[in-house]
């Protein structure tokens, strides 16, 4: 996938599962914006092309590869990752692509 992502991480713990963490590269056709998911649907965070949005998402501790479950859509999307719930407005949610 992305050779160089693993580059910095082949430290003592090894880098066998770095594929999970790739963010960039072509967007496969099955990726959908988070805002399109319906309540009850699950997805995996794959791509966040807008850097400003990515920064916000990363700073909250949400990472590409994280599995999420959409809990509700109205008035705003609420989703769960691990033990935490987040809510994002439409602009942010449509900039996060999941598979």
């Amino acid at each position: 996938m992305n050779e160089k992502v693993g580059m910095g991480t082949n430290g003592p713990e090894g880098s066998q599962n770095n594929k999970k963490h790739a963010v960039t590269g072509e967007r496969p056709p099955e990726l959908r914006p988070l805002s399109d998911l319906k309540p009850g649907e699950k997805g995996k965070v794959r791509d966040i092309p807008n850097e400003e949005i990515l920064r916000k998402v990363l700073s909250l501790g949400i990472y590409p590869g994280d599995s999420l479950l959409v809990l509700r859509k109205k008035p705003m999307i609420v989703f769960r990752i691990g033990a935490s719930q987040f809510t994002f407005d439409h602009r942010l949610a449509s900039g996060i692509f999941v598979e």
Partner: protein
Amino acid sequence: MRPDPNNLNTSTAGILGPTTLEHQAPELFVGGDGILLIGAPNVGKSSLFNALTGTYVTVSNYPGTTVGISMGRMKIDYPEGKEFLKVADPPGLYSLLPLTEEERVARRAIFASNAHCLLHVVDAKNLPRQLPMTLRLMEAGYPVILVLNLWDEFKELGYQLQAEKLSTQLGIPVVCTVATKGEGIEELKKSIARVFSHGKFTPQKMPWHKSLEALFKEVAETIPKEKLPAHLKRNIAAILVLEGDDRLARFLDLDPERVKSFRARARHLAGQAFSIFAPLFYKHVADNILKGLFQEPGGREPQFREKLSQALCNPLIGFPALLLVLYFGFYEFVGQFGAGTVVGWLEVDLFGSHINPFLNQLANHILPWEWLQKLFVGDYGILTLGITYAIAIVLPVVFFFFLVFSMVEDSGYFPRLAMLVDKGFKKIGLNGRAVIPMVLGLGCDTMATMTTRTLETRKERFLATFLLSLAIPCSAQLGIIMALLGSRGFSVWLGYLGVIILILFIVGWVGAKILPGQAASFYMELPPLRLPKISNVFRKSFARMRWYFAEVVPLFLIASVILWGLDLSGGLTALEKGMRPLMGLLGLPGNAAESFLIGFFRRDFGAAGLFKLAQETPGQAGMTTQQIFVASVTLTLFVPCIAQFMMMIKERGIKFALASLVLVTFIAFSAGYLLNGFLTAVPLL
């Protein structure tokens, strides 16, 4: 204006200077024998602070209600004896690259920290998301203890962790706690004591690739040493700059072109923007460490709490719930009981018939001159006006307000409310996050103005500050206006609410159009709903009251002295005379001018004056419903109180504060004039 390192009691919120000095904060602890608490919002950091120190600061279930740094102290038992250590609790921090002002405050505290020990507090359930931050703190060379809080929830939900192995892997102490119940605190204290007596420990090095490490070094060498914050290592500064921290780069006086080329090289080496690569790298290292040590539970049954949480996010349930909270919590409890019954008892029965007559007599007895008597007693006396208003009117209202506010806050309802109002708030140039300053403003606008710094963009901070000074009545004012209007029927009260909200939206909407910039996107972590702990609610309300007392009572006293001086010199009469024609325009009796004037010193003073005016019967008829209505609206909109004005200057600058003052006055009287004209033409009341 900075936290006094010697202040061993809790010094609350808002004590940090302007943002331009971001990295220049002085060392937090004199002598360096302190502990700094670091953690994301909602991990129970403040509860831990309380458990450690025994003193009390605000603990809340809403991201962003603790602004500023709280200081306390804790007792540590060494084998050789006891010692007291200082503990600092800055606001929540998600990452080392701050997005909001409060995160900046927290980061500044880290960089200025000569703490012997950093406690990184995490929600144990969220360890995988928060461990990368631990790694960053370790990498930065701070002695870190990892505190896994909310350990009871962790176990109840079926999570598993081999904490001891984690500790070995990381090379730092790991302690499990339930801060609210005091569990694990003794062990934590022991760990801290060990860190203090053993001194340095050697945390694991981060496995960066050699080529990147070489680049860090190269960047670090361009950083002038004298510019570097006291406790920030050059290498770490280099990583932050490469990650896109422009503020830091500017502060370090780095050449923008060079920074650009460094970032390009980092991008090349990492294969993607370094600002993305770095967080993923830390996360990757963290995941590798946790592999096999941390286990999430399998299927999760939706619990009652979860269902309730979902329901509150539903507008059809959430908004009626809001009305219920407003009606029972604020109208019935704060307005009727607090501002009505309790105030009545304190003001009329206690002060009015016992204390003040006694004080009047006493003053007349021992003070030889009338002018001196008037300083202490009488219409504008320090004791009979300042102290009486502060204790008998404002205190109970504010206390009951904070009681309700704290309860709602601890339940975790506010983030859900923020989500519900986001769409509406975006129309007035704010986002859902502004709900906290706005609701807090209903308690005390001064405090609320301070919390506007949790808003992300400049535009939002300006708009929120302005709207607070215009259209959000504080609890003291609101309480009196509630009593005033309530006596004329619930529909009058609803009408008042409607008019104020309408003006809030019109002004906000126009302001959003005029001010450059845009509202930031809304994103928020929803903390779990929790049953508020009554003891916590009370302690928190008392802590807020203490703050209120310390900040506000002196202003009351100053206000009564100024009023006394104005009264004695005839200035008050002159000003009042000048304002009388204005009152005529609003269809109000001329002597209402006094209430407006006094309103500047305390919003509630003004309202209280109006209250008297409305009721007075001997020698003068009370005001008509229309007059009361117009006066209440105008007075609500009219200038902020002097304390809020000071806070506006402090937070947003003198120019903005003065411009707001003029604009607010203009809007208030225009609205009053139009309202009076409208009601005269269409006699609804």
